[in-house]
């Protein structure tokens, strides 16, 4: 393997960096990854994309088709990340190797910054950068590293754990080849293993502070399974346990680290045994973990970084929780298991809301959540019914706590009964909303709901063209938009209100019984003193139309500003006439009437209302102004 890779040295041409992208079930993200590489300001690179026996190869190949002339594509049987990266290394021609996971991205200046560091210090063997998380909750927008002193030695790597992520790493190809490439027997933590080996060989490692890689967080990532990551970390550290190259101090550090990882692993195993109801094994595992945590309180580093928090309070809580669990398992094992399961279900249900599609025991989770919501609802109901009204009454009299007194004491405009009625209305609305939202939440945690509505996977109707799945965030945004449009419309329809652009569409909905018509009408007085209706030609009063203007006058009449309104219409009529936009006569005056018709079946009296009341008259002389 190494020889084969060494042979490449002879054929290496001027490519500076070989970007190695292993691809496995990554169709959602691969284009973003490739585009981020093509967008690099440093351009002397080649891309080697290794399809590691991906089950969606057809789709993958379809997606990368536009890039095929610009990348080197290799396809192989599934051999894991290590195998895929090794294939990429073997095909690489560049002096430097840059690793990029198919779900991660780089900012445009990433490679340029990394190579600049190499050029600045030619003796460097490996340069790595921090990464910013993006994608699913809860880690987005946080940096990957948690320390201010990034590890650059074997001891540092041991102490700090897996702080070097492949997507932020650029290394000399020769160094990686000399270290023996990635260990293909490892399915996880293979990068940690290689960095340790490289560090152990005395390679010069540097941390790049000026640029970040972009690390995607999602539930399908290999690092998402905490237990397996811990097992892999233990496997990696065990490899170095018997290494003769370690000094005594380093070995002690390694053993300490190994003990810590094993304790976390025992903790995880114990938790699983507890949930599965195997109390004996759970007690053994948790006992082992407790024995370690009681003695030491290690900083949770390395692969277990996602597993536990760093805060002192949580460390104390963990110890206390372990002690209670062990005591419970000793005295009332079944009750402890039930309590642990219920608590776990509740936490899982909460987690489900943040990470859909992760529900493991949907029925239990649903029931627990439903019961919790029902109990909480009942408690709120009791509180709102029996505790709050006396509080309102005492606050109204100024006999409650100052904070409540200030809210209503002395506001004599409303009676106490008003406040109580208002509270009663508020209470009912709140409880209704509470139960509706609760029901929705219970529905949302159901895996069927999540699978169906969060990630619909529908087959192609034609069976030929590939179907591009929709990202969850996109679906969420679409549902939000639909909820706003449809929900807003339905709300207005049900409540019979109007909030433009939402409406209940009440046009022509009223009953008409009388064959009569009453409305405001504008008439113009021509120079010969005759009156003409200004509604006969719609151009006279533009932009108003015959439906809008009478309604507008009704509104203006309430404000007692009819004269200003008619004056405005007069001025606009004349302005439009002078601009040639209508051919109406010059007016001496404009009059606003409220007119009344008895409807004629053939509308013969349209120009002769049966009755009209003059409201306002504006004369020509008034339009010139002072």
């Amino acid at each position, binding site marked *: 393997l190494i020889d084969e890779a060494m042979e490449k040295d002879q054929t290496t041409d001027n490519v500076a960096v070989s970007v190695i992208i292993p691809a496995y079930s990554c169709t959602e993200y691969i284009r973003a990854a490739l585009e981020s590489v093509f967008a690099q300001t440093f351009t002397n690179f080649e891309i080697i994309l290794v399809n590691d026996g991906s089950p969606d190869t057809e789709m993958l190949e379809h997606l990368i088709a536009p890039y095929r002339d610009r990348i080197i594509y290799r396809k192989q049987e599934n051999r894991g990340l290590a195998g895929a990266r090794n294939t990429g290394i073997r095909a690489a021609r560049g002096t430097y190797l840059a690793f990029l996971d198919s779900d991660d991205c780089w900012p445009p200046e990433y490679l340029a910054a990394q190579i600049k560091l190499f050029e600045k210090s030619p003796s460097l063997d490996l340069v790595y950068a921090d990464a910013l998380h993006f994608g699913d909750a809860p880690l987005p927008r946080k940096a990957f590293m948690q320390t201010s002193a990034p590890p650059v030695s074997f001891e540092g790597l041991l102490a700090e754990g897996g702080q070097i992520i492949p997507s932020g790493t650029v290394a000399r190809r020769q160094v990686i080849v000399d270290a023996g490439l990635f260990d293909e027997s490892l399915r996880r933590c293979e990068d940690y293993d290689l960095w340790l080996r490289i560090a152990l060989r005395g390679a010069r490692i540097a941390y790049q502070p000026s640029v970040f890689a972009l690390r995607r967080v999602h539930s399908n990532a290999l690092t998402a399974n905490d237990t397996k990551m811990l097992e892999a970390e233990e496997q990696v550290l065990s490899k170095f346990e018997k290494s003769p190259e370690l000094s005594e101090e380093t070995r002690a550090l390694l053993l300490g680290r190994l003990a810590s990882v094993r304790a976390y692993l025992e903790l995880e195993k114990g938790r699983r045994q507890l949930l599965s109801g195997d109390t004996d094994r759970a007690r053994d595992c948790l006992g082992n973990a407790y024995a370690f945590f009681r003695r030491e309180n290690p900083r949770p580093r390395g692969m277990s970084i996602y597993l536990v928090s760093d805060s002192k309070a949580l460390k104390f809580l963990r110890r206390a929780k372990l002690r209670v669990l062990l005591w419970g398992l000793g005295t009332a094992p079944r009750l402890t298991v039930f309590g642990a399961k219920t608590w776990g279900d509740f936490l899982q249900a909460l987690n489900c809301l943040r990470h859909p599609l992760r529900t493991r025991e949907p029925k239990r989770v649903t029931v627990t959540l439903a019961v919790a919501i029902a109990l909480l609802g009942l408690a709120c109901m009791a509180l709102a019914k029996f505790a709050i009204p006396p509080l309102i009454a005492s606050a109204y009299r100024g006999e409650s706590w100052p904070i409540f007194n200030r809210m209503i004491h002395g506001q004599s405009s409303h009676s106490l009964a008003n406040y109580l009625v208002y509270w009663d209305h508020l209470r009912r609305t709140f409880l209704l909303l509470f139960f509706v939202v609760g029901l929705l939440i219970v529905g949302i945690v159901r895996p069927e709901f999540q699978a169906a509505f969060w990630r619909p996977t529908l087959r192609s109707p034609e069976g030929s063209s590939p179907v591009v799945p*929709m990202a969850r965030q996109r679906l969420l945004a679409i549902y939000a938009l639909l909820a706003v449009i449809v929900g807003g419309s339905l709300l207005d329809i049900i409540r019979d209100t109007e909030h433009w652009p939402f409406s209940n569409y009440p046009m022509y909905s009223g009953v008409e019984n009388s064959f009569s018509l009453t409305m405001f009408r504008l008439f113009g007085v021509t120079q010969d003193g005759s009156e003409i209706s200004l509604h006969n030609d719609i151009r006279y009063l533009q932009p108003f139309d*015959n439906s809008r203007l009478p309604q*507008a006058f009704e509104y203006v009449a309430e404000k007692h500003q009819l004269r200003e309104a008619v004056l405005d219409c007069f001025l606009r009529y004349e302005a439009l006439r002078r601009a040639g936009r209508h051919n109406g006569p010059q007016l001496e005056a404009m009059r606003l009437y409220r007119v009344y018709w008895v409807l004629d079946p053939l509308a013969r009296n349209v120009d002769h209302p049966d009755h009209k009341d003059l409201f306002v008259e504006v004369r020509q002389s008034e339009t010139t102004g002072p």
Partner: protein
Amino acid sequence: MKWIAQHWNNFWFSPASADNLGLCRVIFYGSMLLFYLLTPLLFPTWGWHENFSDWGKVSLVFWQPIWLFAQFHIPRFSIELLTAIELTWRISLALSCIGLFTRLSTAVSFILGIYLFGLPNSFGKTHHLDILMVFCFLILAFSRCGDAWSVDCLIRKAGHGSLARSRTLSGEYTWPVRAIWVVTSLVLFAAGFSKLRHSGLQWITGDTMAIFLIQANYHVTDAEPLTSWGLNLAQYTRLSHLLAAAAVMLEITFPIALFSRRARWFIVPSGALMQLGIAALLGPNFYQMMLCYSLWVPWDRVAARLKKQHGNQNKYVLLFDGGCGLCDRTVAIISSLDLLGCVEFCDVVKQRPEIEKRFPHLRQDQWLTHMHVITPGGRVRVGFDSYRTLARVLPLGWLVLPGLYLPGVSVAGSRIYRAVASRRHRGACPLPGSAFPDGSQSGKNLEASYTQQEPTTSGASLASWGETERASKRKIGS
């Protein structure tokens, strides 16, 4: 739950190509643009769709902001600003229609559109004719409607240069159209529901419809009725009852069109007809809303059928060098413009044996270096002339076709073609460069040599190849 989820997903997210949504975008924005550009000129007596900037001249005495404007304190801007907004909006409609900067232009269309549509409604009375359009603008702005039938798509294809039209399916292209359907149904259902809620069956059985029909002739509506037939209809009580019942029935049952494909064929055209009837008898015109009904048409199927009809006829064969990035990108664009499926694309690198067999008269060294178009009649067009021939075939090419036949264009075009062709191998083209620079044959000479040359292998003249192919197709067909 499974059943609901399955039907829910089938309705909203059943995978579809981007074609239908793209065509809906072209039709919706195109028709809106034409409507707002042309109707004020063609039909100046229509009341309410005049220049929006005119509202800048109206006194604020009439200002009665709608809920949206009141909530967000949106003011009435000055005439100058309104004119600028209206102009920008129309430009955004045009850009959205052709699909240039689609994401931006559709977003601008919505943002400015909601303001412009809301503005008249803030002067005394809310009309409900334009609400559906506001939602259509919003939905299309949020969708990926520029992924097909757009200049953006052409630019992307020119960048990637893949001949195969990337026909990926996704629910992304289904939900916007369905959302517009749902909103349309809601609008009509709400109108029917309001009538029943406020008036009950009396709206149908009373004189309401007859009175509305008569009132419409007293200049009370936003536009005058197109006819005075309403007065005649109002004389017949049962007829007006029937009209009222049909209107309410249609409005209430409109949502059925969402679920039943058969009912859709009846309900949607009936909805359009009803609104046409309203314009004819009562006055209010729902023309823009009726344009929205066009989004119920499966345009991708219409286009596919048209393409199929034309595709069955004899095709123009385009020989291009698939190994050359420039040629590949050019052909990708041409394939996108080939709306009627009149062109068959043959990559001389990948389909070399097939081409040699089909066109034995063509010289291999030439079709490797020049773009060739072989007409159904068997005539060979090379270089710039091939583009001119294609302009006749591609619908969008008709726009530039007259320009290509202007005096001097042929000479200039040939020179440009030669200049580009001779340089194409400087990029990523692995094939030998054009023969032009060393003074060998130009496109015209080549065409002449083809017409003079007799076939050596098949015995049939190139001009009769079309016949040969037709014969072979018939043979295959039989």
